[in-house]
C-alpha cells in the first residue's frame, strides 16, 4: 500500500475539476474522485489489518521517507498507525457525503468543488504525515478553503464569520508553529515525529512547549474558551462547509493534541492535564446548556459540537489507555455524526428556507426519510446504544473513572451529567421540527433526492458500523494508543 495515493487521488481530482468544462463534469469528477478515495481508504484499512494480523508490530506501517529540504532536515515522511487509519476513513466518508449534498450548488460550482477537495486533501495529508513541518503544511492547506467556502458560499453574516474563523485558526496555527520550532531547536533540529518521540526532552522545556501546541491545536477542536469560531463559522457556512468544518477540520485539532502535543511531550501533558480536564468539563456541560437555549438548528448542532468534542479532549487529558481510546473513538464518531447532522439540517433548510425550530413542525409527515435520518442522528448525539456516540462516550467515562481521586471523579460526573442535557436539547429540536402539527405551507414539500439519500445512507452506515460493532474500531486503535500510553508512563 503506497500512502502517496492517499494524497494523490484528491490532488488529481482537484486538478481534473479545474480542467473540467461544465458543472456536470465538475460534479461527476468530484463524485468519482470521492468514490475512489473511499475505496482506497477501505483498502488501506484492510491492508492495515492484514499487516497487523500477520504480526507486523511496527509503530507505523507503510512508511516512506523522502528528503524534502535536507539543509533543514525536512523530510516527506509518511506512515500510518490505527489512529491515522481511523481518521482517514472518517475523512473519506465525510468527503463523499459532502460532495453529494452539494449537488445543487449553482454559484461557481467548479471553484466550490475545488476548494472542498482541497480541504480534504489537506486533511488526508495531515493524517499521514510523520514530519511536523509537512504536517503543519497540510494543516494550513485546509484553513484557506474554509475561509473562502464561508465567505463566498455562506449565508447570514458570512464575512464576519469567515474572518473570525480564519483569524482564530491562524492564531492557533501561529502557536503550533512556535511550538514545532521549539521542538525543532530543542531536539537538535528534527521535525521527525518518530525521532522526536525517542528523545528525552527536558521536563522544563516540555512545560513551555506543551501549552503552545495543545492550545494551538485546541483552537481547531474548539477548546474552551477558544471555541467561539464554531457557532458562527458553522452557521454561516454552506452545508458541505459545515460538514467539513465539524467533521474533518475539528478532528485535525484533536489529532494534533494527541499525536503531537501529548505524545511528544508527556511531561507537559501531565503538568497541564488537570487544567485541560477542567476546561473540557466546562465545555461539555456549558456547551450543552448553551445548546439548550439555541433556536437555530445550525447553532444547536454547533454548540452541541463544542460539547461533544469536549469528550475528546477530556479523554486525552485523563491519560488512561481506555479514556484515550474513547477520545479517538469520539473524534471518529462525532465526525461522522455531526457531518450527518449538518447534512440533514441542510436538507431541511433547502426545503423550508428556515432553520428556526420554532417555525417548523410535523415535517415527518412530508419528509419521512429526512426526518428519520434526523431522528437517527439525534439519537446518536444523545448517546443511544447501537449508534456510535454511545460507544465513544462510555469508553471515555469508563476510562476516566480509572483515575480514583475526587478531582477526576467530579469531572467525570460533570461530563456524564451532560447526557441528560443533551437529551433535553435533542428532543426539543427533533420534537419541534419533525413532530407536532404541520403548517399548511409545508404540505407540498418533497422528501430527499437520490444524492441526499445516498449521502445520508453512507453516513448512517458509518455511525451504525461503530455503534453495533465497536470492536473493530477498538482493535484498530488499541495498539496505537498503547504506544502513546507507554511513552506517557515513561517507558
Amino acid at each position, binding site marked *: 500500500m503506497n500512502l502517496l495515493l492517499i494524497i494523490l487521488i484528491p490532488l488529481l481530482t482537484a486538478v481534473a475539476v479545474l480542467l473540467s468544462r461544465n458543472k456536470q463534469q465538475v460534479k461527476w469528477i468530484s463524485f468519482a474522485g470521492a468514490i475512489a478515495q473511499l475505496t482506497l481508504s477501505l483498502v488501506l484499512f484492510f491492508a492495515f489489518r492484514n499487516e497487523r494480523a500477520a504480526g507486523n508490530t511496527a509503530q507505523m506501517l507503510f512508511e516512506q521517507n523522502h528528503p524534502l529540504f535536507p539543509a533543514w532536515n525536512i523530510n516527506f515522511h509518511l506512515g500510518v498507525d490505527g489512529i491515522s487509519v481511523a481518521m482517514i476513513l472518517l475523512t473519506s466518508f465525510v468527503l463523499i457525503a459532502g460532495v453529494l449534498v452539494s449537488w445543487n450548488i449553482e454559484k461557481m460550482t467548479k471553484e466550490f468543488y475545488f476548494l472542498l477537495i482541497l480541504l480534504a486533501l489537506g486533511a488526508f495529508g495531515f493524517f499521514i504525515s510523520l514530519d511536523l513541518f509537512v504536517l503543519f503544511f497540510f494543516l494550513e492547506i485546509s484553513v484557506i478553503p474554509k475561509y473562502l467556502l464561508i465567505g463566498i458560499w455562506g449565508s447570514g453574516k458570512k464575512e464576519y464569520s469567515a474572518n473570525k474563523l480564519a*483569524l482564530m485558526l491562524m492564531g492557533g496555527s501561529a502557536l503550533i508553529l512556535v511550538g514545532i520550532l521549539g521542538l525543532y531547536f530543542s531536539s537538535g533540529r528534527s521535525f521527525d515525529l518518530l525521532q522526536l518521540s525517542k528523545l528525552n526532552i527536558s521536563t522544563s522545556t516540555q512545560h513551555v512547549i506543551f501549552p503552545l501546541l495543545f492550545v494551538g491545536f485546541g483552537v481547531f477542536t474548539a477548546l474552551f474558551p477558544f471555541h467561539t469560531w464554531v457557532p458562527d463559522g458553522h452557521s454561516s457556512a454552506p452545508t458541505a462547509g459545515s460538514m467539513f468544518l465539524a467533521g474533518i477540520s475539528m478532528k485535525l485539532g484533536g489529532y494534533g493534541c494527541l499525536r503531537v502535543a501529548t505524545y511528544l511531550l508527556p511531561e507537559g501533558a501531565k503538568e497541564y492535564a488537570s487544567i485541560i480536564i477542567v476546561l473540557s468539563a466546562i465545555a461539555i456541560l456549558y456547551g450543552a446548556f448553551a445548546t439548550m437555549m439555541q433556536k437555530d438548528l445550525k447553532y444547536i448542532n454547533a454548540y452541541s459540537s463544542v460539547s461533544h468534542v469536549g469528550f475528546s479532549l477530556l479523554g486525552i487529558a485523563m491519560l488512561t489507555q481506555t479514556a484515550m481510546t474513547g477520545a479517538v473513538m469520539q473524534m471518529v464518531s462525532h465526525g461522522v455524526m455531526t457531518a450527518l447532522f449538518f447534512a440533514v439540517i441542510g436538507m431541511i433548510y433547502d426545503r423550508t428556507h428556515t432553520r428556526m425550530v420554532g417555525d417548523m413542525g410535523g415535517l415527518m409527515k412530508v419528509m419521512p426519510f429526512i426526518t428519520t435520518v434526523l431522528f437517527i442522528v439525534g439519537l446518536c448525539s444523545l448517546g443511544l446504544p447501537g449508534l456510535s456516540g454511545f460507544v465513544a462516550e462510555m469508553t471515555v467515562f469508563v476510562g476516566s473513572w480509572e483515575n480514583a481521586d475526587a478531582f477526576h471523579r467530579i469531572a467525570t460526573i460533570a461530563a456524564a451529567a451532560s447526557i441528560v442535557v443533551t437529551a433535553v436539547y435533542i*428532543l*426539543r429540536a427533533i420534537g419541534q421540527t419533525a413532530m*407536532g402539527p404541520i403548517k399548511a405551507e409545508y404540505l407540498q414539500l418533497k422528501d430527499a433526492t437520490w444524492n441526499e439519500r445516498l449521502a445520508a445512507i453512507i453516513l448512517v452506515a458509518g455511525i451504525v458500523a461503530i455503534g453495533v460493532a465497536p470492536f473493530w474500531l477498538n482493535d484498530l486503535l488499541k495498539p496505537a494508543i498503547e504506544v502513546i500510553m507507554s511513552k506517557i508512563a515513561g517507558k
Partner: protein
Amino acid sequence: MPNATTIALIPLLPLAGFLLLGLFGRTAFKNSAGIIGTLLLLASTVLAVYTAYDYFTNSSVDFYRREVPLQLTWLRFSENLSIDMGILLDPISVMMIVVVTFVSLMVHIYSLGYMKGEERYPTYYAFLSLFTFSMLGLVLSSNLFQMYIFWELVGVSSFLLIGFYYNKPSAVSAAKKAFIVTRFADLGFLIGILVLSFYSGTLDFNTLIARLTSPESSELKTAVTSSFLGISGLSWALVLIFIGGAGKSAMFPLHIWLPDAMEGPTPVSALIHAATMVVAGVYLVARLFPIFAISAPAVLEFVGWIGAISAIIAAIIACTQTDIKRVLAYSTMSQIGFMMFALGVSKYGGEEGLGYTASMFHLFTHAMFKALLFLGAGAVIHYVHSNEIKDMGGLRKKLPITHITFLIACLAIAGVPPFAGFFSKEEILLAAYENNTPIYWIALITSGLTAFYMFRLYFGIFWSKPSHLSQMPIHSGERAGGEVHKGEGGFAMMLPLILLAIGAAAAGFIPFGKYVSSDGTPLETKFHLVFSVAPVVLGLTGIFTAMWLYKKQNTRPDKLAASLNGFYKTAYNKFYIDEVYLFITKKILFNLVGKPAAWFDKNVVDGLINFTGNTTQILSGKIKKIQSGKVQQYAIYFLAGVIGLALLFIYVWK
C-alpha cells in the same frame, strides 16, 4: 436443553421484525406488517415457552442453575472490564422472557384490530418489535453494561411509541418527558455502574455477585470500607443503580412521566407502561438482589421505603383521577411499589427470602391482570372515543366480553381469592408483616384503596348511568381510520382479553416459590387463613364502598369530594409534584443556568475574542498614519530619532 442459538433467537426474531418492517414496511408490507410482526413474535414466544419448560422441568437437582450459554465480547475497555453480549439464564430471566413474549404477543394480536387502518401501521409494528427485542435483551443480559444498553433501548422504544401520534403536541411532550425523566435516572444508573465496576473489577453479573457477596473477597472489603460523605462506596453504587431502576419503574419522586405516557396508543401502554418495561427497575434490583441483601441491607431498606411510599401515594391519586388510563397508570405505579417494597423487606435465603419470591410472583401476576385491564380499557376507549369516565357508563351490555374480563382483572388486582393477585399480594403482605411492621400497615391500607379505585373504575365504566357517547350504536372510529365498526372490535381484540383473563384468574395457582426464590432453593409458600382475613375484608370493604358510591349515579361521590375538599384537591392535582418539577426545570435550569450560559458565551467569551479583534483594528488604525509614505514625514521622524538618541547618549548614558 435448548442450545444458545435457540435462546438467542428469542430476542433476535423481533429484531429481524424491526429491521424488516422499519426498512421496507412502508413500501412492501403496508398491510401485512401486522401479520409479519405477530408471526415472528409467535415464533419467539414458542421458543421462550419451550426454553422455560425445559429449564424448569429438566433440572435434576433441587436448585436452579444460573448459566451463561452465550457470551461474546462486544467492547473491551481494559483487562478486566468489558461489555459482553451474553445470555444469562436463571429463574427470573426465564420467567421474564415468558412474560415479555406472551404479553407482547397478546398486544401484537390485539393491535391487529386496534390499529387497523392506521396510516403508520408498519411503523407501529416496527417499533413494537424494537421494544420487544430490547426488553428481551434487557432481561437476558449477562453483563451489567449490556443491561444498560438494552435499558436505553427500551427507553427509546418507549419514547417512539408514546410519541406515535406525532402530530399531537401532548403526545410529543409526553414522549419527551418520559425520555428525559428516565434519562436523568439513567445517569444515576450509569454512575452506579462505574462505581460498582471500579470496586468489583468486573461487569459480569455472576462474577460481580460472587465478588461482592462473599465475606472473604477483597473487593467487598474495599467497597465497604471506602466511604464518601460517610456512606460506603458500595452503598453509593447501589443507591445510584437503584435510582436508575426507580426512574424506569416510575417510583416516587421519578414517577411523573408515567401518567403522561398514556398518550401513546393503548396497546402500547399495556405492553410497555404496565406489564414489562416499567417493571425493569424491580427486575434490576432482583438481579442484584444478593448484593443488596447480603452486603448493603441499609440500601435495601431504602428501596423498601421508596416502594411503600410510591405504592400509597399512587393509590391515593388513583382514587381521584377521571381519565381511565391515568387511573390505571397510577395503579401500575402503586403495584410496582408493592413489588419494590417486597424486595425491600426481603432477606437473602430460605424462609426469610419470601419477599423476593413474592415480588417476582406479583410481577408475574400483575403483568397478566394489568395488561388485561389496559387492553380492556382500550376496547372501551375504542368504543366511546374518550378516556374520561364521565363519557362512559352502562357499557356492560354493549361490551359483554370486555366487561367480564375487566371484572376478572379488577377482582385479581383487588386481591379477591382465588384470583391471581390474591396469592401474590398475600405473600407480599406476609413478608412485610414479618420484617417491617410500618410498611405492612402502609401496604394494608394501600390494598384497601386499590380495591376501591379499581371498582370505582369498573362501576363507572360498566354500570352507572350511560352517557351520550356510550349510547350511540355505531361509531366511525378516528383510530380506525374512518372505518365504521360496531361492538367490541372483533376477534383479534377479544382473543387476547380472554387469554389474559385466564391468566389473571388462574396464575395464582402456580407454585411460584418452587421455581423462583432468592437463593435458588425451593421455597415452600404456605397460607395462613387467619392472616388473610384482614386484607380480604379490607378489599371487600373497598369494593362495596365503590359500589355504594358509583354503581348508580348519585350525588354521594361529589359530597364525599367536597367534604375532603383540600385533601381531595391536592390528590386530584397529584400532590403538585409536576409543578415542582416544572419549577426546577423551567425556572432554575432554563432561566438560571441555560440562559446565562448562552449569554455568557455570546457576550463574555465571544466578546473577548471580538474585543481582541477590534482592539487590534483600532490600534493598527492609530499607527497606520505613521506609514504615510511621505518622505518629508519620514525625514522628520529620522531627525527626531537622531536628536533623541543624541540626547540620550549625552545626558543619560554619558
